[in-house]
């Protein structure tokens, strides 16, 4: 098992390296930091533009392979992910924003798993009955709504609700606004901010876990070993819980592990709708400012998330499913 995991990690590190290098070259080819300065009025002198670009190692007059070498050396030797065009270091900027994204993503993921899996089990047991049909239609409806539409609709409803009751029950921007020292009020204020983005991120997750868990459970519910359990005299509910549900949770666990990366990109939209200064917001800023180093660093972080998820999925499935041979 340990050998298997080490082998996987080695493979993933090489993958990450190639993918991030590819992103670096892609970003260097498509982003034009020089245009930040050229569009200024009055235009700064050429020498000063070149100097600032050189300081950040993003000057398009330097061959890209040399820039790449410097960039790589900085990361390997000093863990320095480079500078933005405005000369601020990228690493600390990302580190300070991870916390905000993490708060948002963690709660939403946990809630989505709980709701999604329970609804999935509930509907699978009642296949083709009215509860199943109604919940399935609702799920399909929410599944196809674009994330931006969902976020903005929730904002619209919340604002109208606030206007209706005449007080600010929900906040639609940021994560904090309370300035005092009272911890109870602080928590209350935090929850008032957190609830809407969490709803927006929980719904798509819930819906997809619901639909997949339903399919997985239906697949196992008709399996031979469940029929055997029933034939032995086990009541239907216990047979499902002990025999069908357990096996059907394996693919769900794998999905959950993989969702770590997906949730991160889903947060880009939510953070922009609710003006939460997390990684997703930072990424849109880096693109808007032609910040090559910043965008690549975010992409690298996304890559690490994906591969962590993949590794967890490998471990989960090996651990939960004895049929998977490790070698």
């Amino acid at each position, binding site marked *: 098992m340990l050998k298997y995991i080490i082998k996987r990690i080695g493979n993933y590190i090489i993958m990450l390296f190639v*993918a991030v290098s590819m992103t670096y070259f892609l970003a260097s080819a498509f982003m034009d930091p020089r245009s930040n300065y050229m569009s200024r009025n009055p235009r700064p002198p050429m020498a000063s533009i070149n100097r600032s670009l050189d300081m950040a190692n993003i000057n398009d007059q330097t061959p890209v392979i040399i820039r790449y070498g410097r960039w790589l050396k900085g990361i390997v030797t000093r863990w320095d992910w480079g500078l933005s065009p405005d000369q601020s270091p990228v690493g600390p900027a990302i580190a300070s924003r991870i916390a905000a994204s993490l708060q948002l993503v963690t709660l939403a993921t946990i809630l989505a798993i709980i709701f999604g899996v329970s609804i999935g089990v509930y509907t699978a047991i009642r296949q083709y009955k009215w509860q199943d049909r109604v919940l399935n239609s609702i799920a*399909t409806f929410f599944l196809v709504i674009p994330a*931006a539409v969902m976020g903005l609709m929730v904002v*619209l409803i919340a*604002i109208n609700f606030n206007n209706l009751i005449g007080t600010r029950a929900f906040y639609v921007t940021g994560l904090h606004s309370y300035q005092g020292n009272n911890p109870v009020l602080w928590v209350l204020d935090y929850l008032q901010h957190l609830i809407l983005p969490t709803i927006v991120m929980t719904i798509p997750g819930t819906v997809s876990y619901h639909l997949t868990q339903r399919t997985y459970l239906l697949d196992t519910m008709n399996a031979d070993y469940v029929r055997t359990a029933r034939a032995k005299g086990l009541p239907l509910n216990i047979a499902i819980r002990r025999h069908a549900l357990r096996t059907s949770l394996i693919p769900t666990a794998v999905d959950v592990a993989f969702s770590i990366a997906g949730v991160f*990109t889903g947060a880009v939209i939510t953070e922009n709708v609710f003006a939460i200064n997390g990684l997703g917001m930072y990424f849109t800023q880096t693109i808007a400012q032609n910040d090559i180093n910043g965008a690549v660093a975010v992409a690298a972080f996304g890559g690490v998330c994906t591969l962590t998820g993949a590794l967890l999925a490998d471990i989960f499935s090996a651990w939960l499913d004895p049929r998977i041979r490790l070698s």
Partner: protein
Amino acid sequence: MMNDSENMVADADATDEVRDFQQGDGQTADVTTDNKSGKSGKSEHDDFKRTGRMMLYVRRFCRRPSAVVGLIVLLILIFFAAFGARFSQWSYDEPDFAALAAPPSSEHWLGTTVGGSDLYAMIVRGLGRSLTIGILSSICITIIAALVGTAVAFFEGWFEHVGMWLLDMLLVVPSFLLIALIVGMAKGGSDWIWLAIGLTAFGWIGYARTLRTLTLSLRDREYVRAAKFMGVPSFTIIVRHLVPNLGSVLVINTVLGVIGAVNSETSLSFLGLGIKAPDTSLGTLLNAGQSVVQTSPWVLVFPSVMLIILTFSVQLIGDGLRDAIDPYSRSGGKAE
């Protein structure tokens, strides 16, 4: 649309081929003679008409009311996107400075934006853009994914190993970020082409992996082996035998892929990284509506409703197609 029907026809041909092949193989003498007598019987009585495969699909599709509703709604939307601009006196790029942020009225049917653009005209334009990008990139994604996915599975050995490793590697960095990287730089005017290219370039990878898994069971079939031993070129085998046999999966996923592409397009445009002024798309309108959600909510509501109708109708069509094509489907009636 053209592409879809071609796929379906090809699918039917290939499956007939399989049947012929199996018949030629002749498991038992009885079966073979039975088939032969059946065939000769058919040619004698011309009034007996066999239900064609396409006809069967159409009938099964029509049996689902929701699928038919979805198709009608989508056709209305396409018509609206193509000809809707003729019904209004306003053009999307011609602001009315006498009516800034005006609510819906007889003059401006759906109101105007803060810049004075007529929202009806902008929605017609944006819907056209979303539909074009969605359908175009979904078809391209299917073609690329089908060719790569089947090729990786067909050439076994080291080619498959390297191919799978490369596919996995391309999936490491979330594709949304890579698309944003490429499209964020495109200047106004040509940005919708870049968006379609970006969505295609990074959208096919996961899909190719799925198709490779499906091909694994096909590559050892007798007709593929026979073609191989007859010396048919590999590319011809892939195009003639492997891809058509995934036809049903491809058709369904092309339709459902439109939803994914429209969603990505909306997200990117909403973030200001996709389609930019003077052009417009539904995502761009959402972005414009976000800042005026309290003062002029109609800028937000109408594009949102339009997007929901668009994606939901496509989903209904996809579900209907899945049930129509899937031979094991139990959701329809019993009769053929």
